[in-house]
C-alpha cells in the first residue's frame, strides 16, 4: 500500500499520495451521481407512505398499486406503444436522410443538416406549444398519431448524428465495388452498406425508443385523454403530491432503460 502511495500517478510524476484528495472528491461526486438513481429502487419496496430508506418494512404494495390501476397501466401501454412506433418511423427516416446527405454532396447539404438537427437546438417548450397549436388545428391533439409524429421529430437528430458518424468512418468504395459488380444503388446499400453500419443503426433505434419513452414536456401538451403518456401522468402526480406508486414506476423505468442502454453499449463494443 505504501509503495502504491509513493508511485507516480501520471506523466508529471506526481505521486498517488499527493493525489488522494482527487480520488476522494471523484468518489464523492460519483456517489452523488449514482445514489439518487439507485436509491429509488429499495425505496419503492417500503411499506410506509413516506418512502423511507432503508425501508422499515418491505412490501410490494406500490407495485400492486401500479399494476392494478387501469390508469397507470394504460399510460404505460401508451408510452411503450409511442416509443416503439417512434423507433419504427424515426430510424428509417433518419438513416435515409443520413445516407442521402452523405452521398449527394450538394452544397445545400450543410443547410439541410442544420435544419434536420433543429429539434435539438430549439427549446423544447417552444416545440411543445407550437405542436399543441398545430395539433388543435389539425385535429390530432391527444392522438397516438400526433404523439408519434412529434416524438419522431425529436428523435430524428439523434438517428441522423449517429448514422452520419458511422457513414463517415465507412469505406464507400465498397458500395462502388458492389455497383461495379452489377448491383443498383439500393441493392448495394442493403446488401453491403447497411450490414456494416447495422450497429450504429441499432443504437440509433434504441436511442429513439428511449427518447420517446422518457419525453415529458411535449407529451404534457399533446398527449392526454386515452393517450396520456406515463411521463405525463407521473409529472402531474409529482406536482400534486408524492404518490409512492411513482417509486415503483420509476424502478421499472430504470430497469427498462438500463437494459436497453446496456444492449446498445454491447452492440457498440461488438463493432470494435
Amino acid at each position, binding site marked *: 500500500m505504501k509503495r502504491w502511495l509513493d508511485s507516480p500517478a501520471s506523466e508529471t510524476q506526481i505521486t498517488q499520495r499527493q493525489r488522494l484528495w482527487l480520488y476522494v472528491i471523484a468518489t464523492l461526486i460519483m456517489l*452523488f451521481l449514482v445514489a439518487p438513481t439507485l436509491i429509488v429502487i429499495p425505496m419503492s419496496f417500503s411499506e410506509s407512505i413516506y418512502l423511507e430508506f432503508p425501508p422499515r418494512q418491505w412490501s410490494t404494495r406500490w407495485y400492486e398499486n401500479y399494476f392494478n390501476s387501469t390508469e397507470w397501466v394504460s399510460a404505460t401501454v401508451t408510452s411503450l406503444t409511442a416509443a416503439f412506433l417512434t423507433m419504427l418511423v424515426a430510424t428509417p427516416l433518419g438513416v435515409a436522410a443520413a445516407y442521402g446527405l452523405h452521398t*449527394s454532396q450538394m452544397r*445545400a447539404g450543410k443547410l439541410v443538416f442544420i435544419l434536420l438537427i433543429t429539434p435539438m*437546438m430549439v427549446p423544447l417548450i417552444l416545440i411543445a406549444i407550437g405542436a399543441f397549436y398545430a395539433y388543435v388545428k389539425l385535429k390530432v391533439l391527444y392522438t397516438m398519431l400526433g404523439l408519434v409524429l412529434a416524438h419522431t421529430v425529436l428523435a*430524428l437528430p439523434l438517428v441522423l448524428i449517429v448514422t452520419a458518424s458511422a457513414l463517415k468512418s465507412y469505406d464507400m468504395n465498397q458500395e462502388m465495388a458492389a455497383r461495379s459488380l452489377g448491383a443498383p444503388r439500393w441493392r448495394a446499400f442493403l446488401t453491403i452498406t447497411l450490414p456494416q453500419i447495422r450497429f450504429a443503426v441499432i443504437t440509433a433505434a434504441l436511442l429513439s425508443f428511449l427518447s420517446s419513452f422518457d419525453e415529458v414536456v411535449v407529451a404534457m401538451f399533446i398527449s392526454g385523454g386515452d393517450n396520456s403518456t406515463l411521463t405525463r401522468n407521473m409529472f402531474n402526480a*409529482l406536482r400534486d403530491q408524492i404518490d409512492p406508486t411513482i417509486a415503483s414506476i420509476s424502478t421499472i423505468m430504470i430497469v427498462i432503460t438500463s437494459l436497453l442502454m446496456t444492449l446498445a453499449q454491447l452492440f457498440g463494443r461488438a463493432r470494435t
Partner: protein
Amino acid sequence: MTAVDLHAEGLRRDAFRERLALFGLCSPALTLIMVILVIPVGWLFYVSFIGADGQFSLENYDRMLTSKSYARIFRTTFEVSLLTTAICILIGYPLAYFLSQMPSRIANLCLITVLLPFWTSLLVRTYAWLVLLQKKGLVNSWAIDLGLWDEPIKIVHNMTGTLIGMVHIMLPFLVLPLYGSMKAIDRDYLRAASNLGASPVRNFWTVFFPLSAPGLFAGSLIVFVLCLGFYVTPAVLGGGKVILVSMKIASNIELFVNWGAASALGVVLLVLTMLILWGAARFLKLEQLTGGGHQ
C-alpha cells in the same frame, strides 16, 4: 460533333436527377420537421407580434421589458443557469480529470456512474431528489444523525432544491465532452513540460488546463443553453417558487391561454439560444484555426 453535344444535355439531366433522388431521401425527414416544428414555431413568431385586440402590436415584447414579474423571471432563469453551470464546472472538472487519468478499464467502469444517471429518465431522477430532499427525507435525516444540523431544513421546493436537481441532471452533459477532450490531449506535452522543469502543479495549469479548455467550453455551453430552456426539474423541485422562462411560457398557455405572451417569451428564449450557439460555433472554429486543436 453533334452526337457529343446531345450527350452533354442528357448527362446534365442524369446528374441532376441523381442528385435530386439522393436529396429526396432527406425529404420525409425534412417534411416532418417542417410541419411539426418549423411552421408552428414560425407561426408562434408571428403571433408574438399580435396584441390582445388581434392587431399588430409590440405589447407582448413591451410587457417583458416593463413588467416586474417578467424581469424577475428572466433574472431567475439566468441565475439558475449560471449557477448550475458554475457548479457543474466546479465538480465536473475534477471528475473528468480523474476519469482521464485512470487506466481505461477503471475509467470505463467509473464512466458507468456518469452514464447511468444520464440514461435514467429525467422524471425519475427529479422524483428521486424530491423524495430525498423532503423535510422527512433522507438528506435531512442523515444530516441530523451526523450532526450537521439540528432540525430539518427546507432544501426542496426552493432554489436550493432546484439547483441540486439541475446540477445532477446537467453534470453528465459537461463531464462527457470534457472527458473526451481530456483523453485526446497528447501526453507528450506533459512530459515535455516536466522535462523542461515544470512542477506537477505548474504543468497542470500551464499545459493541461489550457488544452482541455475547448472541451470545457463546449460542455459548459451545452449545459448553459439547456438550463435556459429547462422545464421539468425546476417545475417540480422549485415548488412554484422558482419560476423560469419555460415555466412562464407553459403557464401562459395552460392557465391564461395567452398565446401572444407565451410566444413572445418563446421567441426571446429561442433567439437567445440561437445567438449563444452561433457565437459558440464561431468561437470554436476560431479556436481550431488558431491551433487549439491537438488531436
